[in-house]
């Protein structure tokens, strides 16, 4: 959270359209367990009220952030402070980002960052096939790894492939990429948000920069985390939060 990379405005050719993105800062690392835990403790957020969590999944015993009854606060399992937070919901990730003046990346922004501005790159490091030295994936390790464990990409961004997948702002439609920037008409909201980047427990194919899938925005899984982006010209994030909490399924 202490380091970010500035991304200049640039035009990208997408489906015969020119789309300009940029003029933002993006965190060089994924959001960590320590950062989320400290924020939730400091704000005394009732995360698990009524048996259902809001920000992160505190009910799965295998996840690192757990409620400590004796201390009446959240604590992190030993050794996981500097690991990317997993089990975080989309709305939880956006709320944390919002609280520090940022938001989540849109899918196109995320891909631009993963490829260091060259969307033709297959992986963040180039076209070389993945290995256990380049990224944490495919159960080679069996869990997330500390941020900055693997080499960064050209822009200095770590874990753009592997360790934890990353929530994006966009609603996910299987047939349409970059939905937020494409103004896709006539499609419904099916309750899934786009996730990118692959993770410790997913296969090599998920590491490809164009790989994408959808996940229910209310769920916090063992392999999905988040990265924060700050617009130079701050956008209004509150409507996105409101959308998430009132989304209906058609």
């Amino acid at each position, binding site marked *: 959270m202490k380091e970010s990379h500035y991304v200049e405005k640039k035009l990208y050719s997408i489906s015969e359209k020119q789309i300009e993105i940029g003029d933002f800062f993006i965190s060089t690392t994924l959001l960590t367990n320590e950062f989320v835990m400290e924020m939730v403790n400091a704000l005394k957020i009732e995360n698990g009220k*009524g*048996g*259902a*969590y809001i920000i992160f999944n505190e*009910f799965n015993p295998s996840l690192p952030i757990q409620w400590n009854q004796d201390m009446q606060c959240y604590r992190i399992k030993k050794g996981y402070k500097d690991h990317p937070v997993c089990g975080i919901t989309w709305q939880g990730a956006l709320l944390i980002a919002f609280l520090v003046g940022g938001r989540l990346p849109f899918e196109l922004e995320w891909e631009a960052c993963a490829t260091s501005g060259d969307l033709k790159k297959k992986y963040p490091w180039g076209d070389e096939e993945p290995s256990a030295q380049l990224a944490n994936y495919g159960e080679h390790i069996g869990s997330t790894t500390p941020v900055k464990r693997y080499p960064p990409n050209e822009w200095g961004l770590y874990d753009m492939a592997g360790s934890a997948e990353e929530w994006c702002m966009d609603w996910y439609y299987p047939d349409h990429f970059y939905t937020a920037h494409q103004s896709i008409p006539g499609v419904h909201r099916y309750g899934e948000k786009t996730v990118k980047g692959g993770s410790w427990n997913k296969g090599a194919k998920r590491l490809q920069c164009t790989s994408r899938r959808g996940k229910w925005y209310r*769920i916090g899984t063992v392999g999905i985390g988040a990265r924060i982006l700050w617009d130079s010209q701050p956008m209004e994030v509150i409507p996105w939060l409101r959308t998430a909490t009132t989304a209906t399924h058609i």
Partner: protein
Amino acid sequence: MRCPFMILSHHRSGSNFVHDLVQAHPRYECISEPFSMHSGIFRDIDLVPWLAEEFDDTVLHPYLTSYPETIQFLQNLRDFLVSPYKDHARGMKETMLFEKLGWVNAYVPDLKIVFLVRDPRAVVHSIVNRAMYRLWNYSGKIPVYMHQYYPEEVIPVTPAQLSTWSWKIRIGLAYEMLNLFDYTVVRLEDIVVHPEDHLPALMDFLGDEMTDAQWTFFHNSHHQTRGKAYSTRRSIEEVLNSWKEGLSHDNRQYIESHLREEMVRLGYL
């Protein structure tokens, strides 16, 4: 529109593997254990039966009345399961809910069930070997259930005995209630040994064909053992045979004598 589905299995039966295998299909999305791993209440009421007639469309079940956040979560979950994109399908996998299947049928009436089973000797060995009986509080749940429904039986004490009874109780409950659903029974061993027959059959039950991505996932999963307790990467040898060396003679005898009827029914004896 495709029916929602549930992969139901006892703990340590390969449900993560089948979950990921199904989800490797580009049109299938599966939520892993929304009741037992995404809620703060269902592990506490494991093996407390919920009946179909207790279902209520507003509060879902009387027990939930004081948990409005959980009611909302479960209502959202149901909406999510029954509203897939175009010709896609959505489902969940669970290792609990055996005693709540009547209620589940009222909660999501069109739910299809893939009932996944594994040789109980392998299941018990895995649970004991990884001390998973603590996570699931078998010593707190199993004796209470047995006192009510198996009053003539000697209450199990050791982890292997508790795990044996957990399997017996849950598999018995499943067979009592599965006829409420469109269901299929899948043996993990069959998938692993004869994937060419059993994987297409599994996907056919769900209404689709196996894809190349699923075959790739399958072959990668069994190439070698990797990862930790919940990894889907296990060698075929480990899946099929690790219990044979790890399970003590006494525990094997206990399992085979107490589960004889179920094991014969499922082809394990």
